[in-house]
């Protein structure tokens, strides 16, 4: 079994209004349950906005601590899910479900195979 990262790409700026967000969150929770029931769910979580991020960077011998996200863009990763899947087709199918639930674009990326497993 391979593992895949499903990243949710979210536009910068204020989150949608409550009446918009609530049904979305309900769908996302339902999908998480579906993933758990199917035995493919590994981890998932939503992130605070990029303005809360801190970047650590080794420059020569100094460890720098910097305010803000590493890259600025019009979108940021708002959350992610990790699933176990037999192949890309299976992972893409979960990705499609997540795109429908979140109404946002989903990037599907494979993890390196873990030699420990």
């Amino acid at each position, binding site marked *: 079994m*391979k593992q895949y990262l499903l990243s949710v790409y979210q536009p910068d700026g204020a989150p949608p209004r409550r009446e918009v967000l609530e049904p979305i969150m309900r769908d996302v929770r339902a999908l998480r349950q579906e993933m758990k029931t199917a035995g493919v769910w590994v981890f998932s979580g939503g992130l605070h906005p990029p303005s809360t991020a801190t970047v650590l960077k080794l420059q020569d011998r100094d460890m720098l601590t910097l305010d803000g996200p590493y890259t600025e863009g019009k979108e940021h990763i708002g959350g992610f899910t990790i699933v176990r*899947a*037999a*192949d*890309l*087709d299976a*992972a*893409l199918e979960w990705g499609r479900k997540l795109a429908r639930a979140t109404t946002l674009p989903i990037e*599907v*990326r*494979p993890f*390196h195979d873990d030699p420990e497993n």
Partner: protein
Amino acid sequence: MSEIAVGEIERVFREAYGRAVAVLVRVCGDIAAAEEAVQDAFAEAVRRWPSAGVPPSPAGWIITTARNRAIDRLRRGASREDRHVEAARLQYAPDENDAEDVVGDDRLRLIFTCCHPALAQAAQVALTLRLLGGLTTAEIARAFLVPEATMAQRLVRAKGKIRDAGIPYRIPEATDLPARLQAAMAVVYLVFNEGYAASAGDRLVRESLCAEAIRLGRLLAELMPGEPEAMGLLALMLLVQSRRASRTTAEGALVLLNDQDRSRWDRLLIAEGQAIVRQCLRRNQPGPYQIQAAIQAVHSDAPIASATDWPQILQLYDQLMSIAPSPIVALNRAVALAEVEGPAAALAIVDGLVLDRYYLFHAVRADLLRRLGRVSEATLAYDAAIARSENAVEREFLAERRVGLTKS
């Protein structure tokens, strides 16, 4: 003597390449290992065949040899446990080399892997030509007018994604099949059109692209007998290909369908293409490729251009517009309309299309304006067409038409 034999070996090898790679991918579970094993088998053939002769079933010989080489390689490099397991799996795999249906399924799996929607279309095309067609990276690069290093990188990246992202090697499930088959057919048709387009590029390479596209088209039609669109695509390519000899002059200039020497059309290809079109008509599950093939079949029926059944062609375009409407189809329909109702009716349609960036839009407009005697507007339209064409042969053709406006 051995030089002739090597040429012969190369030919036999290229024909068997896709088949051998397809089987070896299933056996090895990895494209790079499969290609390496098949390459080993080729080296072995070059060593043996000149003295021993070509074996009765060259493809079977290549597959068996490649499989043995794959096992040897795994044994040599078997420092890790899983490699032993792999070698064992190879060793005890049932010998199904000569079972055509199994090999056929392998090739179909490989087509669907190469044409997976997670790969960019340019990568799909390159992979299909490399793995199934056995074209070299240099040949594919020449055909698509990109540097060889660029093409090599494109192939490496695509194979890397198949391996690392886990793009599966299997025939898609029934629910996905129509969309996936569409993608595979689009790749085959793109390869064909790339080979058919008149260009200053390497003529031999372009001809081999058409031959390869038709070979892949046959494969899809044979392996997916339940899909009439696969047959439609094959018929379409055969009928267009039948005019290859007459569509350019000896100097390489373009000749329009109406002006072609129809005695030079390939009767065998036409007969085959038309037979398939008739079969499709009987099945009565029309689709875009089948309708386009039917349109070509009507052209092929006319012994001289003036005998073309344009009303029937117009009717087929109407049908195509109803199931797969697009501005390009509308433009082609307008060309037929000009023959049935005259250039004014066609121009009214063409002027309503948003196709400014497409050179043929301006070329069609120019021709309609010419027929309506609106010479200065036609000149401007030819200028626009010439400015948008990326192909030297087409530009030359358009420039000649433009000059012809004021001559007659």
